């Protein structure tokens, strides 16, 4: 079963969609999930929700019958972050759909977390529908144990003058598949996606990020930085597509993959499509290890190789963690990075 296919046919030819998930992945054992908590009062719980485009055909069947289906109408400004917390300590299977409608001129922050200390299965579908002049800042953290499978599909629509800042932190498990699609339909709108991941052991990470710019004078960013340890592998498929009429718009796509092990494998397909003359688009993609010179310098200041490596890695990751608005959460992320890297025994 092939999943998370790009919108671009050429990718099939180059095997970038070679990512295959075992057939039995999509068989949730338990249809009850009672680890959900929130500080938001207006959550509407639905029995069923049908997503627009699932991550693969099989996941659609599941998402038609989720065990958590939420709808949030954000009609006023919120100064404190709205928290949606999914804790797998009591259940191991979560199939969730979250639809968030942001009304005209509303400003809000979201913190969505998925945490598990044991094997878990997560298949989630999140949509943000941002109306005019809205301003959303969302931090999403997937902190599932190594044996977990994580499927995350995010789709957004941005109307005039709206802004969406999305930060995804993925401590990937055995399988982590993410899809992020934003249609910037309005003029003067801005969609920024920043994402960090750390792959370990035999983990597979598949990222499929696309931003379609239809509106004039709009902005799109895809910035992904991650590290691969052990035998982990990552497929990155990114697209910034300037549609006809998207004049004066700007799009930036940056991908950096740090390979911390000789067996790690990184594939990248950073696409840039342009159907409008008056735009400014750029993309860059880089893969490599942490520089020996940088590491040597840090070690000459008295740090061990492992400490130096972690320090340099965190320095790189800072670029995508800037927008994490909660300092406590940010320091927890850095602590987790420390633990993840030090556990990589084939290096030290």
């Amino acid at each position, binding site marked *: 079963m092939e999943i998370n296919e790009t919108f*671009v*046919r*050429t*990718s*099939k*030819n*180059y*095997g*970038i969609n070679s990512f295959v998930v075992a057939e039995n992945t999509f068989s949730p054992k338990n249809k009850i999930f009672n680890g959900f908590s929130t500080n938001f009062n207006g959550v509407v719980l639905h029995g069923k929700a049908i997503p627009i485009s699932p991550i693969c055909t099989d996941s659609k069947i599941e998402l038609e019958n989720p065990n958590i289906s939420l709808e949030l109408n954000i009609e006023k400004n919120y100064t404190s972050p709205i928290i949606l917390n999914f804790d797998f300590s009591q259940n191991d299977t979560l199939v969730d759909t979250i639809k968030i409608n942001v009304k005209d001129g509303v400003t809000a922050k979201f913190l969505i977390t998925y945490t598990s200390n044991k094997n878990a299965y997560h298949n989630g579908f999140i949509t943000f529908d941002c109306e005019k002049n809205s301003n959303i800042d969302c931090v999403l953290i997937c902190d599932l144990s190594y044996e977990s499978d994580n499927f995350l599909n995010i789709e957004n629509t941005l109307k005039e003058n709206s802004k969406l800042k999305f930060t995804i932190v993925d401590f990937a498990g055995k399988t982590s598949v993410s899809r992020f699609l934003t249609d910037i339909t309005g003029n003067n709108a801005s969609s920024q996606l920043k994402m960090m991941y750390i792959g370990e052991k035999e983990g597979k990470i598949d990222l499929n990020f696309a931003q379609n710019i239809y509106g004039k004078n709009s902005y799109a960013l895809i910035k992904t930085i991650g590290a691969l340890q052990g035998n982990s592998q990552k497929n990155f498929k990114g697209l910034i597509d*300037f549609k*006809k009429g998207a*004049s004066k718009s700007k799009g930036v796509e940056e991908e950096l*993959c740090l*390979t*911390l*092990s*000789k*067996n*790690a*494998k*990184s*594939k*990248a*397909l*950073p*696409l*840039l*499509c*342009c*159907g*409008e*003359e*008056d*735009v*400014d*688009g*750029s*993309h*860059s*993609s*880089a*893969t*490599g*290890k942490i520089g020996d010179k940088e590491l040597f310098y840090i070690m000459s200041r008295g740090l061990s190789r492992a400490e130096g490596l972690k320090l340099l890695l965190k320095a790189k990751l800072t670029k995508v963690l800037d927008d994490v608005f909660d300092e406590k959460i940010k320091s927890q992320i850095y602590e987790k990075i420390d633990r993840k890297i030090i556990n990589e025994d084939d290096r030290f």
Partner: protein
Amino acid sequence: MAKTKLEELSTNIYNFKNPDKYEYKMAKGLSRDIVEEISKKKNEPKWMLDIRLKALDEYEKLSLPTWGPDLSELNMDEISTYVRPKTDMKENWEDVPDEIKNTFEKLGIPQAERKYLAGVGAQYDSEVVYHSIKGELLKKGVIYTDFDSAVRDYPELVKEYFTKCVPLNEHKFIALHYAVWSGGSFVYIPKGVKLEMPLQSYFRLNSPESGQFEHTLIIVDEGASLHFIEGCSAPKYNKVNLHAGCVELFVKDNGYLRYSTIENWSKNMLNLNTKKAICEQGAQVDWVSGSFGSKISMLYPMSILKGDNSKTEYTGISFAGQGQNLDTGFKVVHVGKNTSSLVSSRSISKNGGVATYRSLVKILPSATNSKCSVNCDGLMLDSISKSDTLPVNDIQTDDVEFSHEAKVGKISEKAIFYLMSRGLSEDDAKAMIVRGFANPVSKELPLEYAVEMNRLINLELEGAIG
């Protein structure tokens, strides 16, 4: 800034037609009989016919690519795969029939030969009509001949290398090529021989509704070096013409090869060419490519850096105008240790043209301490055109430095304003910026070709901006 749209230039210096005269033109279509007939006309050995027939089988098995430009208008039943011009191959320019001679004279081939080429080959439709090489090179053991003669005169050398770089089942159009190939060049540069002057082959397709399937095979032996130039053009007809050539390059230990192409096929041409190089230890192959013509191009030269310390550079520009879909790019596979590749690609699209950069960088686990840097820029001259960048990067080792950068956009208004403030008209300012944009490619070419390329850019720009 206001634009004055002018009609696309319907003619340029390459678009002159000779009457469709030939000694023999194969019936249209593709069949076993036709393949056998081509082989018979060429009086080929059986081993070559066997390769042709095997390729035909592969052609029938393989399907069209599922990606890239739409090739539905290509109907092999409407294409004649072999057209023999009304002359044999000549070694004396004066012996070439006037009509064909005039064609190449208009294209500047003999003047170039006199001035700065070490050898020249000229192919008209399916056969090479003129081939020459400077005497001193023959004494050094350099072989530069048309491919048909090489099959006859150097069968062991041809057998050793033919299909070994580009296998006959790599894709549908390479299978087609091997089934009906005709003409092309064969070059062998012996160990340690360094050619100071380039060799050039020029390919001209005059006959309408026909295909050109030339095969170029170059072997640069240990420590040798060569600059090879390839030029292509054709007059414009209303029906589709097909070019499915193949270039196989072998660069042995510490050898150097520069392969330059200026392609200006007519805008009814489907250019489905395949080019590949294998670099042994310490060898280097540099590609310089200018794609201006054709209706559809699918052209992705490839370097396989097999030996340790081998290198490759690709510098390319494509210029897609009205009705053109140029899908070009570069592929590199790093196999050996300490290998390096440097890719610089530029594309310009205007008047509804589609320019796509499609590439592959593959660094295998064995290619430790390798470096790869890719840079591609797209320039759009209006908002009805399209410019896409589709790079695939497959990195399988940690001990590597890889970076890819791409930009797309229009001509900077600030730059135009600056140039206009220095006294240039808006048109001249834009043309100067576009020429500057193409400069990384033209500076890699010999001076005469750089001038030629700038002239092509000026021709293409006329009617596009202003």
